[in-house]
């Protein structure tokens, strides 16, 4: 019998729950709504009060207008190429009968761009395609090759972000395999017809979603254009940054960052719409078994493998180059092996390393806990409060980092909440910006946990708190760890928002990498990057081991909730 819409569930009147909800809204107000409001007030006011003047001025400025246009065109192109590459990889891995070893290998390589600090691809591009580049000069003997501009920015961003599309599309393509395609084959469709009439239409919402993910990532990308775009390709995030750090024009930077708000907002709502509609694929797909590589003809298979192998090899090459750069004196000039670069980062780089690790290790548990608590409240409550929580907790994640960074800079510079220059502001930025992964995973897991499991705990005498950590938390442990991992990775690698928040007291490795890049100290920049990648790999492996230890063996056997 359906009892889904009870007018009164006693749990919702639990005093503990009320306290948590009130506290949550307080921090969300302080770290999400308040900074955004400050940013808007700053952008839409002058001494005389409310005005559209600055925005109108920015839109009238040809340079800024060009930056806006460039940002959108670049994001669109990166979205298209990245989604295509992601689909191709997902299809190849899932549907061409690829061996286990190769799939593992591709999984690993594709993970690299997701856990690397910014500039990693850029450094590789500069060394490969620059005037003294390994490929342009070394391989083809070109003189004065030009690395800066559209082509390399576009390629570098597409390489960095296509794993997002891969991760989003892979489960869909795997699910559509099996029964659905076999049904189409049994009805007489050829491979190409089946792909065109079944596989593609069913993945279309997923493809749209993947495109939007990459579009948003590229729109917000600050690091790649800063290095690779050059003078002829101004984009909004870098423009806003230079406006503030170069010209000390906070208001101008705020206005520029706000121009990003419109496309970012559109993407956010388009994505919500798509994700809500997508469910039919996952529902149908659950039934089917994995298809046995019947989806493509032999020559198509070989072609797909060749393309994937080439891209994979290129990514591996970029990372090899990064490691090589970090262990030679000066790439392209004096290539004798040395540990000097590591000496640099472990002496004068120590403050940045220490600060980054402290911030990441503090943000990680807080962000993980915040993620499961918000996810729990979203999954286990109803009505307006739930929707508000869902949207507000997503805002800082959906906004480009530049907007968040500038908003924090404006909001926390003065009383009553003067936090500029503290570690708190950086930690808060990471928690509220990077916990949505944990939130979403929690909601998804809880939707599979029968509510009666929690009721059983109540009926046996446990209160809300005991039930949460005795029953609910163990069942959503994977989500907690997903949240921990994401917050840690981002805290080690992000720059777009926090570059506005670092100070003499608290700085970050990524900011030091940027400084090294601008000082053309590429050796230390590469060494820092390698260090970050190693730390991230190490910590995520530890988290995986811990997760396996902490999840009861039964959870691998039992289906959550309906153990039947």
């Amino acid at each position, binding site marked *: 019998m359906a009892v889904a819409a009870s007018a009164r569930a*006693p749990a919702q009147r639990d005093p503990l729950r009320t306290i948590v909800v009130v506290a949550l809204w307080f921090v969300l107000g302080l770290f999400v709504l308040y900074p955004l409001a400050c940013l808007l007030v700053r952008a839409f006011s002058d001494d005389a009060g409310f005005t559209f003047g600055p925005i109108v001025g920015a839109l009238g400025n040809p340079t800024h207008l060009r930056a806006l246009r460039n940002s959108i065109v670049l994001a669109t192109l990166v979205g298209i190429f990245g989604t295509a590459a992601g689909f191709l990889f997902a299809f190849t891995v899932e549907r061409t009968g690829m061996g286990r070893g190769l799939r593992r290998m591709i999984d690993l390589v594709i993970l690299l761009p997701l856990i690397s600090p910014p500039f990693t691809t850029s450094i590789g591009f500069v060394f490969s395609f620059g005037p003294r580049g390994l490929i342009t000069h070394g391989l083809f003997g070109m003189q004065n090759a030009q690395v800066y501009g559209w082509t390399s920015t576009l390629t570098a961003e597409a390489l960095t972000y296509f794993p997002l599309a891969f991760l989003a599309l892979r489960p869909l393509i795997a699910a559509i395999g099996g029964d659905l395609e076999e049904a189409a084959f049994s009805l007489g469709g050829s491979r190409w017809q089946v792909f065109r009439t079944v596989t593609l239409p069913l993945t279309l919402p997923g493809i749209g979603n993947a495109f939007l993910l990459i579009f948003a990532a590229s729109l917000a990308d600050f690091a790649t254009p800063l290095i690779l775009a050059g003078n002829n390709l101004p984009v909004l995030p870098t423009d806003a940054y230079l406006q503030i750090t170069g010209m000390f024009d906070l208001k101008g930077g705020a206005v520029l960052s706000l121009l990003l708000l419109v496309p970012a907002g559109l993407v956010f709502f388009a994505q919500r719409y798509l994700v809500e509609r997508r469910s039919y694929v996952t529902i149908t797909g659950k039934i089917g078994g994995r298809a046995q590589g019947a989806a493509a003809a032999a020559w198509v298979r070989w072609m797909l493998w060749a393309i994937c192998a080439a891209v994979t090899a290129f990514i591996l090459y970029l990372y090899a180059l990064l490691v090589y750069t970090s262990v030679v004196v000066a790439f392209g000039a004096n290539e004798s092996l040395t540990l000097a670069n590591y000496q640099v980062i472990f002496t004068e780089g120590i403050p940045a390393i220490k600060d980054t690790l402290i911030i990441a290790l503090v943000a990680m548990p807080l962000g993980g806990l915040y993620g499961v608590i918000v996810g729990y409240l979203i999954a286990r409550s109803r009505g307006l409060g739930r929707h508000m929580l869902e949207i507000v907790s997503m805002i800082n994640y959906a906004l480009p980092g530049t907007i968040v960074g500038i908003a924090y800079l404006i909001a926390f510079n003065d009383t009553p909440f003067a936090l500029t220059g503290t570690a708190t502001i950086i930690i808060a930025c990471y928690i509220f910006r990077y916990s949505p992964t944990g939130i979403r995973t929690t909601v998804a897991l809880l939707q599979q946990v029968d509510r009666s*499991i929690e*009721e059983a*705990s109540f*009926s046996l005498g446990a209160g809300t708190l005991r039930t949460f950590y005795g029953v609910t938390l163990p069942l959503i442990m994977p989500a907690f760890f997903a949240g921990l991992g994401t917050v840690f990775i981002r805290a080690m690698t992000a720059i777009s928002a926090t570059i506005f928040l670092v100070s003499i007291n608290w700085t970050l490795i990524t900011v030091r990498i940027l400084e090294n890049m601008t000082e053309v100290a590429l050796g230390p920049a590469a060494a820092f990057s390698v260090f970050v990648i190693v730390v991230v790999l190490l910590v995520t492996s530890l988290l995986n081991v811990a997760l396996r230890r902490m999840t009861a063996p*039964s959870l691998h056997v039992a289906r959550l909730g309906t*153990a039947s």
Partner: protein
Amino acid sequence: MSAASSVGITLQSVSAAFRSPEGGEVAAVRDVDLAVRPGELLTLLGPSGCGKTTTLRMIAGFQEPSGGTILIGERDVTRIPANKRDIGFVFQSYALFPHLNVFDNVAYGLRMRRTAADAIQSAVAEVLALVGLSAFERRFPGELSGGQQQRVALARAIVIRPRVLLFDEPLSNLDAKLRVDMRTEIQRLQHTLGITTVYVTHDQEEAMAISDRIAVMNDGRIAQLGGAEELYRRPASSFVASFLGRANLLPATVRECGGGSVVLDVAGTTLRVAAATPYPAGATLNVMIRPERVSLRSPDAGLTGEIVRRTYLGEKVEYAVQIGSTLWHVVRADPPEGETLAPGQRVGIAFPCDGVQLLPR
């Protein structure tokens, strides 16, 4: 496990309202008064949507009534949360904690009560022996069959010696044969422990087999409360008559009444039956006759019709007989071999007068 001193459960004009998707309020339970006697097993029986599960969940404290009072013993628990009501609840989905093994599942409630470790050890061992799962302490729920999971759920609910036991369709996920075994076991345990029990089911046979008393619910209200035999033999309404067993219900009009009997127009014929209460002439009501009280005879006089279906079920045969616009159900127990009645054949029907009951329309 010794029998606990039993308490009753009292519901005083309890209601439950739900918010409908359109924004209005839908009443799931309306002004229900119910007194469960100490130590008895009372079943809430009804079709889905009748309010039986909602009523049970309000007794448990998973939902708050929108009106009325709930007492467990002398204690008003209306606003007391579930974890402070001292109840044992057995769920339709079993709701075993998938991350805990059988021992820890059963021990969960005892740990919440801060029972000493050695006492937990012996209590869990004792209750697992009671449900026949002694060897399964270290297994996880995912490694058990449906029936075993149900026993663990039962053990987990009774080990805390709750003041009341509540069952929400506990057997509906089991296959038919296991269902019969388990209901016997639940009944045996309930009798041994003497814990006041409310049991929700939509299966009338299960309800009749297991209950001391049955409350038949319909549309958020209790339609009738009584023992299984009483409900079957003397249903208070057409709904109860047709929900508990099968019934032939025929619309009838009172022609005249007097002298302890009533003359009715039923399906084109006239019928005289005994009536304890007088009915005014022209009143409309339903005549109810159980299928097993109807017998088939040769089609010479009285009610005659055509057999449209014959279903052979081993110990009995069921016939559907079309008479005028009404389809009659007839059951013949222990059918003789070589019986020749078949669809298409014309037959007459007969029933004794004491097999006829008058119910409000």
